[in-house]
């Protein structure tokens, strides 16, 4: 089965949902009119032998409506047939179903698109940023994001979670009166709590400090 035959079979199965196959440089592209049905089309394509998801990429048609295009490159390992599926997503919605149930490799591709373009994938089990850090406020591959970047706070010390051992026995506690207080062999959790609460209270403003980035980000103007 060649790529063109496969494209025609998909077109026959779904009718008006799928556009006529477009050929450019020997590659076949199909456009899916309704992004909500991407999973059905992909499942059918997989049942036809397209078992290898080469890549998912995304386009920002800035200034046009619909703004987003999501592009799926598929391949059948058995015979080498390849096909490209495209679907347009409107900016107001910015969401389409995840194909992770069809190919597991979609997991990181979809996370990357969410990170870089800000398109969400419903049904994705773990949709978080992948290349940028958690808490980064922008989507850098959008056409309205400047090449030079935008000033952002970098995550500071407060961003990392405390080590799991901290607060347990055999771990040094700063500020104890003597070595036994600083490095107790046995810790009584209740005693620790009383001591810690007293210390936290003495600091007063400590709570307000938590969770904040320490200092301005590198790109912020001084």
């Amino acid at each position, binding site marked *: 089965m060649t790529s063109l035959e496969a494209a025609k079979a998909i077109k026959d199965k779904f009718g008006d949902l799928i556009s006529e196959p477009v050929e*450019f*440089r020997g*590659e076949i*592209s199909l456009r899916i009119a309704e992004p909500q049905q991407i999973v059905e089309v992909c499942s059918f394509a997989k049942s036809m032998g397209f*078992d*290898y*998801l*080469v*890549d998912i*990429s*995304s*386009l*920002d048609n800035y200034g046009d409506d619909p703004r987003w295009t999501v*592009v799926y*490159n598929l391949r059948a*390992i058995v015979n*080498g047939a*390849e096909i*490209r599926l495209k679907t347009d997503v409107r900016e107001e919605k910015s969401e389409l179903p995840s194909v992770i149930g069809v*190919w*597991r*490799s979609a*997991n*990181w*591709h979809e996370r*990357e698109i969410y990170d*870089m373009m800000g398109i969400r994938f419903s049904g994705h089990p773990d949709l978080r*940023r*992948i*290349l*940028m*850090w958690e808490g980064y406020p922008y989507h*850098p*591959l959008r056409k309205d*994001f400047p*090449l030079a970047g935008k000033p952002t706070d970098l995550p500071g010390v407060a961003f990392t*979670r*405390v080590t*799991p051992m*901290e*607060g347990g026995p055999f771990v*040094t*506690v*700063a*500020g104890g009166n003597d070595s036994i207080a600083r490095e107790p062999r046995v810790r009584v959790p209740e005693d*620790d*709590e009383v*001591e*810690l*609460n007293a*210390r*936290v209270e003495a*600091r007063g*403003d*400590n709570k307000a*400090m*938590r969770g904040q980035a320490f200092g301005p980000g590198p790109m912020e103007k001084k």
Partner: protein
Amino acid sequence: MPEVQIIDIGDSAARASQAAEELPDMPGERMVLNMGPSHPATHGVLRIVLELDGEVVTKADPDVGYLHRGDEKIAENMTYTQFIPYTDRLDYLAPLANNVAYALAVEKLLGVHDKLPPRCQYIRVMCCELARISAHLLGLGAFAMDTGAVTVFLLTFTEREKIYNLAEAASGARLTTSYTRIGGLMRDIPPTWCGQVKQFCDEFEVSLAESETLLTRNRIWVDRLRDLAVVSKEMAIDYGLSGPNLRGSGVDWDLRKNQPYLCYPDLEFDVALGSVGDCYDRYLVRMEEMRQSVRILRQCLQQIPGGWVNDAQEPVSIPDGKITLPSKQKVLSSMEELIHQFMLVTEGVNCPPGEIYFGHENPKGELGFYIHSRGGGVPYRLKIRAPSFINLSILGELMPGCMISDVPVILGSLDFVMGESDR
């Protein structure tokens, strides 16, 4: 007198109370181990958050992106030719192969990929195979060193040095080669180059055999690799693995054979396949690929059009003023060439509107470029399918159940580069 500032830094005790608030059920038996981002066995800046039960990994969450430079964004803001130096920095262990992959992708968009002069095709193939040997050698050396066999590292790095010298002789740079241009090469190879490649092949075969003696039947090596992190055929395809990792699982897919490009159809070589899909198979596949690369190099040396010295002045670039730069001498003496030079440098190669995907068999796997063009000399969108990125996504599935000392072995057997993964 400056005002006295009181700096309040939360001490460990205060953080402990915060921990008690945020993690009420602090694990008693499970321990979270943060491996990376700077750890010698993660080959770059990969971070893996491991959850351990004793010495057994129960959960692994790879965290990538520490080397993210926004290559795809950068590509949208420059001409096709200007992006070539950025491809050096993708898989920085095989810059020559990246150059070829990118040039072929843009040539496919232009529709001239089958018009490349034969000498150019042979030189490009030789560059790709040298890059493959270089990348596999580093992967093998680091893999063996992480597993405790340091000698192999010394052997492979001696050989890699020779490949760097060859890259320098051809392109002028050891690492940032940028050797290809859209429609050809930066320049022809120097007359002594082929002789040096032949000498390298002779020496390398001996050295590879020596490395193999140290590893392939080494009891410790085999015991640590065999039956570890088995990837079945279906799983490899489902996770989109490519390159030696895919073939290690027994999937017969090599883009040089299945979607041939350049002069690969004229060359004889075998595709190495694994049978089990464990770390040992992936190691064996890489070893065999290096031997096949030498075989390809030797055939190229015999068949290269124009011979080693190129007395016949065979071209290495498409003689089309709209695609490749004219010779400097002509630019300064002829009007037409001056205009071509001016247009190419200021506006870039004029590509037609359209979209293409080109996948290239890189040492790490399938390096693909998806280019969406709306005409002109600048891509509207350039997506890089980075094999390392996709190969890493399987880690969360592979690692649970293995021992913590197996983690560097699995990472070594997957052989990734973070520069490519994070782009």
